[in-house]
């Protein structure tokens, strides 16, 4: 889940660079020069459109059961076939996109909301607060995140929003740790020491100097986390802990398809591919942003 391999060596060791100024950053030129980013963004845009327009473009209502046409193979009437209750798979896939995106952004949002302030604070304050909180972070990180998510989901009640709060909760220590490291780097940089010398308030320091400089690696991490959150949603829904029926989710569709895998094996391909492509797009976009923000990192 939390891809702990996502270390950002360049940023943690080198002094932080500021974001390219908005007026100098040419979006279209970037897309032209980075085909991977262009394709990912195009796919994600289409996905967002599909999620928003599902009520208009889906061929059937997603929950309309037809108990006489169960587990049908793809046909003219149902391009991707029907599920175990005779519902149109394509329509459920389109509606599922909405839940998938909502889940991914919610989880990452929660992770950022908890993780970033905590990371900055403990990095900035240091001392025993840092020592204590770092142990807490280690404690949570030592626990496999999905297991943690299962426990949190149990505590909060089964459902998509709660499941994603759980995943966000598991993201938070990762982000806090990154932010802490970044804050330490920036804090020790000369200009902050200089600002401190001028008697700038702590809040001012955090908001004006530390946060903007430390946030860069977090942007990359967050984009990559969207993929992780998407996969986590699919996994938790597969375990029936995420999206609740009759609403559709890709993970839930896979779980049902697996139930009938010996009868209708074709049902499991479409939702799996949807998860794969979307996770791929988030990852690719994250890598591209990393290259964009830090030109010393080589592509690939």
């Amino acid at each position, binding site marked *: *889940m*939390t*891809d*702990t*391999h996502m270390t950002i060596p360049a940023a943690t060791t080198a002094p932080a660079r500021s974001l390219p100024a908005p007026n100098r950053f040419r979006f279209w030129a970037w897309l032209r020069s980075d085909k991977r980013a262009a394709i990912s963004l195009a796919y994600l845009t289409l996905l967002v459109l599909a999620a928003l327009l599902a009520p208009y473009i889906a061929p059937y209502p997603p929950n309309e059961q037809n108990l006489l046409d169960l587990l049908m193979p793809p046909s003219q009437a149902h391009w991707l076939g029907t599920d175990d209750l005779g519902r149109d798979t394509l329509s459920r896939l389109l509606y599922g996109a909405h839940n998938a995106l909502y889940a991914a952004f919610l989880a990452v949002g929660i992770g950022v909301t908890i993780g970033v302030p905590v990371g900055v604070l403990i990095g900035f304050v240091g001392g025993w607060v840092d020592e204590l909180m770092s*142990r*807490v972070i*280690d*404690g*949570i*990180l*030592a*626990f*496999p*995140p*999905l*297991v*943690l998510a*299962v*426990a*949190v989901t*149990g*505590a909060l*009640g089964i459902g998509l929003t709660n499941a994603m709060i759980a995943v966000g909760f598991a993201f938070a220590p990762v982000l806090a740790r990154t932010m802490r490291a970044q804050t330490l780097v920036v804090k020790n940089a000369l200009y902050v020491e200089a600002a401190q010398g001028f008697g700038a308030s702590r809040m001012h320091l955090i908001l004006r100097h530390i946060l903007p400089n430390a946030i860069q690696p977090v942007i990359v991490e967050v984009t990559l986390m969207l*993929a992780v959150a998407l*996969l986590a949603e*699919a*996994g938790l829904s*597969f*375990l029936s802990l995420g999206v609740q029926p009759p609403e559709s989710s890709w*993970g839930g569709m*896979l779980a049902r*398809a*697996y139930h009938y*895998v*010996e009868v209708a*094996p074709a049902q*499991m391909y479409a*939702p*799996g591919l949807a*998860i*794969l492509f979307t*996770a*791929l797009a988030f*990852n*690719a976009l994250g890598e591209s942003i990393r290259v964009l923000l830090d030109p010393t990192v*080589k592509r*690939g």
Partner: protein
Amino acid sequence: MNAITLMVVRRLGQLIPVALVATFVVFSLVFLMPGDPAIIMAGEYATPERIAEIRKIHGFDQPMLVQYLTWLWKAVHFDLGTSLYSSEEVAQLIVDRLPHTILLVVYALVLGSIVGIPLGIAAATRQGSTLDKLITTVASLGVAIPNFWLGIILVTMFALSWHVFPATGAVSFGENPFEAIYYATLPAIALSVGVVAVLARQVRSALLEVLGSQYIRTLRAKGLGSGAILWKHGLRNVAVTMLTIAGLQVNRLFSSAVILEAVFAVPGVGNLISYSALNKDIPVVQGIALMLVVVVILTNLLVDVLNAILDPRVAAST
């Protein structure tokens, strides 16, 4: 005391606070969960009186901190308690279940290394070639693919269509190692794709970095063959990266195992903990939490020790 011993002692000292935090967090979460174990314990057709009686017998009515400290006191004395539902000793339960999970994780790490490292080396030594691009693409896919979906596909192909491997189930390693490995193959493959992807990528970039360094360029200028350089200097430096990554992957693999054990009906700890968490079997959840924390921390420690042996400078800095 040399640097490595010092590091080991210091890290083992950290184990205690980390384990305390982790078990307390998990205990609070599970404790806060609604649901009353007494209802399950009383049986299918229980009377309300019987349920109340069970609540009292097991002290479910005591405050949370009291219950946690009771658990902790016993745990310190190597008593993890018994499962609320099966009356089985938690320690025994873990001893029975853990080998299944460890087999999967180790098997996946081995498979991942066997495939991932050569791929990374191949990509690095032929940087920019079609092969390199292909390997990079495969690695991207490996990170993005849902393990459990891959698991289902493997079941459909290798078990249900071609009958090469059993679809689901597991055999205990102690009972029959060969059968155990045979049964674990499909889930281990599904679990290993992430390892393959991460290793291939990281080995590639680590190698590229080393091969591009001043030091190697000097060696090359001295007339050393590129094969010899790769083996003698590139790979040793890469080994450090690989070990670190393998250590970090353990935690992730345990996570993925939770779902894969469900797909493949493996009676491992992943299966056990999700079931126990949802049914509020606190002693079992706590026991597994403690065990996982210890396993993950010890794995990372082992990795660091190996790293320190490979590169003594590391020991001083951790």
